């Protein structure tokens, strides 16, 4: 060992580690991992807040209004019945219209998420692996029958938010590898019960979005057309 070549062990060890930093892509991936997790937590927090009864304005007004009318006047029973019938009609109509609007809103959310082109959090061609990784989801990811006929290759998945709920975004590519599809799975909102099982198609900001229900989940697929 030449005298000029040697240095104190402590200094040599410190230099050794300093010469081996994380690469930029590695650093970026680790920072993104934290950002994605924080984003998923935020989506979950929003979903929890929406699910709270005090935030359900329709339910609150309906219950309190009904209770007040019932206990305040027996003499207006006929009028009460008429008003109740009218209210029920309005509620049914509102729910029907809101379903239509919500489906469109969700399709817009899906188109927006698709256009964001966010990187997947887990790269895998196995739906089971992705399901294991996305452990915060309240449901199990499914292999959709609607996609069975398409020759799509699964690339990976990540968390996203649909209708204020924690959802999964799965990224696929076609056989040529030139076209990317994003598929969304979220627990079906209760007000979607009355919607047909058949897929609904719409074009939003140049994105073709198809929405359907399957195995208790709301699913959507988006692609650039």
């Amino acid at each position, binding site marked *: 060992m030449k005298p000029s070549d040697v240095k104190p*062990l*402590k200094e040599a060890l410190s230099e050794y580690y300093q010469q081996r930093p994380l690469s930029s892509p590695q650093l970026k991936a*680790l920072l993104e991992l934290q950002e994605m997790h924080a984003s998923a937590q935020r989506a979950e927090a929003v979903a929890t807040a929406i699910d709270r009864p005090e935030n359900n304005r329709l339910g609150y007004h309906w219950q309190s209004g009904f209770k007040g009318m019932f206990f305040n006047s027996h003499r207006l029973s006929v009028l009460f019945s008429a008003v109740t019938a009218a209210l029920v009609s309005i509620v049914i109509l509102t729910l029907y219209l809101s379903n239509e609007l919500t489906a469109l809103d969700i399709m817009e959310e899906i188109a927006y998420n698709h256009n964001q082109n966010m990187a997947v959090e887990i790269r895998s061609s196995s739906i089971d692996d992705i399901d294991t990784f996305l452990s915060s989801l309240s449901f199990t990811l499914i292999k959709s029958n609607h996609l069975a006929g398409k020759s799509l290759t699964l690339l990976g998945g990540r968390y996203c938010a649909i209708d204020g709920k924690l959802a999964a975004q799965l990224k696929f590519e076609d056989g040529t590898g030139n076209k990317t599809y994003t598929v969304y799975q979220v627990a079906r909102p209760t007000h979607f019960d009355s919607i047909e099982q058949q897929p609904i198609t719409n074009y939003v900001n140049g994105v073709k979005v198809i929405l359907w229900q399957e195995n208790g989940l709301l699913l959507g697929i988006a692609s650039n057309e």
Partner: protein
Amino acid sequence: VPQEILFNEKCLQQLFHYALSLTSNEAQAYDLLHCSLEKYLHLDKSRIEHSEPYLKRIMRNSYIDNQRRKRFEEPISDQDLEKHENTISLIQPSLEDLFISQQQVSMLLQSLNGEESELLYLWAVEEYTFDEIAKMKEVAKGTLLSKMHRLKKRLQAEKMLAQTTSRESR
């Protein structure tokens, strides 16, 4: 409240070096850090006071799980330990006196087991004292010093380390 970025770039670099001290392999160190960070992010962090030491512990435990424990922690016999405990003042590992060629550091680290490499990293890079390391690892200081003493002797026997003549007699 959703958490934001817990570990910034500087912290991640330091954690990577710690992982490197365990694995002695950059690719494995990155995998270890990535997997451990994922585990940490999914934990309930309301009871975790200090995130960085906690993540280090996850990394260490994960690494040990993937290795044979007996290879990672070389056992010290009771007799050996007692002998060293009685003469701690004589065997204080004077690592400060040791010299090495920069080119040999990589070879040196490859020759160490995970625990030895981790101890050297904590001492040299993070600049912990042996008292602090012993508390951190929840081991008796005598045990730690015995291990370091034995490590020093082995490396000197393998002619990887040189020691200044003037201090050798101290």
